[in-house]
């Protein structure tokens, strides 16, 4: 139905996709796999009319087409869920969801009642109950992602391109999404799906195409792949064991939180964190995990409660104070709270650690270059040069830069909020190894993740958050996903 013929894309002389040809069939879920920066999003964006190809063509129902804008693609019946979330912050959920296809009445007015009714019914399909009247800016990243998916479903397109739709979702919503996708498949919709979560691929995909460094490696039926062979195709080598064993034993308490409260997001949160300990924070979407760690980092200070660093009560009112106190954080909102889009990769990297790179007030460009070089190699960041603007990097590579940024300051306490969001399998393994190394060096890590296997395998201890309150403390060696979910579910 939709065919990419030898599609080629270059950015400023840099080729990111070379002559990729793939067919997409109705009623089929086609997974597009590849490492960060392999060119998956670029390919999808060309199919959705967001980018114009430099070479090759797109065939739609047997005819060669040119999409000048997403509008063209949409009107042909091709919708896309974008990897980069695109909320319009001051419009409400319903308006965001049905943007461009608002129901109108006979007078040409937007029919608001109908608008909200439709929006709610689409959200219902994803098993989500959101107040469609609230402005988008109040939503958490996960909620925004749900709305984005609903937005694509609402187009009732013949082809839906989903670029890492579950990156920010927890199991609950993922399940709902999968049943929605299965319905689509039965209706004869072609679904193109990219993800870095291996289990999803094998649960969903009928066929799989693998991209590596902008080249199409192969397209085969899903059953012809095993997880290992898929990874081997993606990475070009075998990848061994993903989760490193935890070997360190935690030291003395470095961080203690007592009765931290900020209504309505969370209340009476108390926990301790030890040197070398990896503490997991689990919970459903909107449980308040992000809010709690943001309070510890001073992004949105709590209204009451105490934070003790090595036993000393410390007031943290802004991130600068947290950083000075030896806390580092990688936020879940990469675009909003992470990157400075127009700045270069190098400048983004060193932003939080500039004092290290200054002699008196003057910046030491050589030292900065050196650090950037090291980080790009250590984290395998794919950028054409350290001077490249970070907004031109693939999502996963942006995430790596932010991780590297947080580590430049050598924090004693590292807060990671969904650190593997959008990161490819190889890099994930590197991050897991990194967490292990940091813990061995005595860094305390506070890990928020919606991927329960991550939480279960990497941590010493797990806290479960339910509707803003701690509901359980679990030992990962003596628990399982079901138990965590039981504590996380609202009662």
């Amino acid at each position, binding site marked *: 139905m939709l065919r990419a013929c030898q599609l080629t894309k270059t950015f400023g002389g840099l080729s990111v996709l070379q002559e990729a040809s793939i067919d997409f069939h109705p009623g089929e879920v086609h997974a597009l796999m590849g490492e960060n920066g392999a060119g998956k999003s670029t390919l999808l964006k060309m199919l959705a009319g967001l980018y114009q190809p430099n070479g090759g063509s797109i065939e739609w129902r047997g005819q060669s087409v040119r999409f000048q804008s997403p509008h063209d693609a*949409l009107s042909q019946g091709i919708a896309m869920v974008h990897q980069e979330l*695109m909320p*319009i912050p*001051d419009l409400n959920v319903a*308006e965001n969801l049905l943007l461009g296809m608002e129901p109108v009445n006979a007078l*040409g007015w937007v029919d608001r009642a109908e608008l909200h009714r439709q929006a709610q019914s689409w959200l219902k399909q994803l098993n989500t109950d959101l107040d469609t009247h*609230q*402005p988008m800016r109040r939503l958490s990243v996960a909620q925004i992602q749900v709305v984005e998916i609903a937005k694509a479903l609402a187009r009732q397109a013949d082809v839906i391109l989903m670029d890492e739709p579950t990156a920010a979702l927890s199991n609950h919503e993922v399940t709902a999404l999968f049943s929605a996708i299965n319905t689509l498949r039965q209706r004869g919709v072609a679904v193109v799906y990219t993800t870095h979560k291996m289990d999803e691929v094998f649960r969903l995909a009928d066929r799989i195409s693998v991209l590596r460094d902008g080249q199409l490696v192969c397209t085969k039926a899903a059953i012809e792949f095993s997880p290992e062979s898929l990874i081997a195709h993606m990475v070009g080598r075998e990848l061994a064991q993903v989760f490193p064993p935890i070997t360190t034993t935690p030291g003395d308490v470095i961080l203690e939180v007592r009765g931290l409260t900020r209504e309505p997001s969370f209340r009476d949160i108390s926990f301790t964190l030890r040197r070398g300990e990896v503490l997991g924070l689990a919970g459903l979407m909107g449980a308040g995990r992000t809010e709690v760690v943001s309070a510890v980092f001073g992004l949105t200070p709590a209204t009451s409660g105490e934070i003790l660093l090595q036993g000393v009560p410390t007031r943290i009112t802004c991130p600068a104070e947290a950083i000075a106190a030896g806390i580092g954080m990688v936020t879940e909102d990469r675009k909003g709270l992470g990157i400075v889009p127009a700045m270069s990769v190098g400048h983004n990297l060193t932003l939080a650690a500039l004092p290290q790179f200054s002699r008196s007030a003057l910046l030491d460009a050589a030292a900065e270059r050196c650090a950037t070089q090291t980080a790009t190699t250590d984290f395998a960041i794919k950028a054409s040069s350290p001077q490249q603007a970070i907004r031109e990097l693939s999502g996963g590579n942006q995430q790596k830069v932010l991780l590297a940024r947080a580590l430049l300051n050598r924090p004693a306490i590292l807060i990671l909020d969904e650190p593997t969001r959008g990161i490819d399998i190889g890099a994930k393994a590197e991050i897991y190894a990194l967490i292990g190394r940091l813990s061995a060096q005595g860094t305390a890590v506070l890990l928020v993740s919606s991927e329960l296997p991550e939480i279960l395998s990497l941590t010493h201890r797990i806290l479960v958050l339910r509707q803003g309150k701690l509901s359980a403390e679990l030992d990962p060696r003596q628990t399982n996903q079901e138990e965590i979910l039981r504590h996380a579910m609202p009662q």
Partner: protein
Amino acid sequence: MNAARPSLDRNFLNRFGILIALITLALVLSVTTDSFASASNLTNVARQVSINGILAVAVTFVLLTGGVDLSLGSVVALSGVVCALFAHPGEYPLVVPISMGLITGALCGLLNGVLVTWGGIAPFIVTLGMMTMARGLALIFSSGKPVADMTPALTNLAGDLGPVPIPVLCFAVVALLAWLFLGRFRLGRHLYAVGGNEQAARAAGVSVTKVKLFAYGICGLLTGLAGVVLAARITTGQPNAGQAYELDAIAAVVIGGTSLSGGVGSIRGTILGVLLIGIINNGLDLQGVSSYYQAVIKGLIIVGAVWLDRRQSRS
């Protein structure tokens, strides 16, 4: 949906500070001067704000998309001159000068829009260029002299219809239509979407180009209307009229809570902003405050009102 209620209240509260400032100011003026609260003075205020009001509504469209229009004042002058050139008594029927003024404004606006969208040039630069060009054209068309000798049919448009001055009527109709349009019509909502997140709007299939062209075009058209109303009011097409009108108009809109980065704002807020500025100007004149201090006090009140407003909406 009971959830709609708090949102409405919050919206109302959002502009509560300005409303408080407005009411306080009106109360102070009613007490300290004999004349402020009189019907004739209130009509007066309404008449005086109407041109800035039309311009403020006009530029609200552009500001909502995240753009800006610095050419308002010059385009007011240009449309006024063009209107006046076609308004000599006995030459053309009334509709000709009016439409010529409106068309002139709309063309300037559309040109702005074309340069912003297809040219990809920053709105600030485009409209700054237009500001200079329109002023030059106004001077060229009028040979630098006020274009006088206008037919009474046109200058009567600045008069009254019953108890209501016609400029006030124009403003009211324009504001009402704009309010309806922005709140109720698809294109209106798309204006917010484009201003709020242009990429997202584009990705959702909204034609950003069309929306922006529309915003600049409407802004130009309404500016043309303001030009015609001003020409009628001062019975002249004045090539150097309207200096710095854009600042008053944009100030009114921003006071009313519209964000200069786009995507947030309302016509109701704009009207409050227009009234605040109008009442300040009227009140200071009534109080007989010396010009030097007028400037200082005006600045203080504007900043103070917005500060109050932001505090209110934050708490």
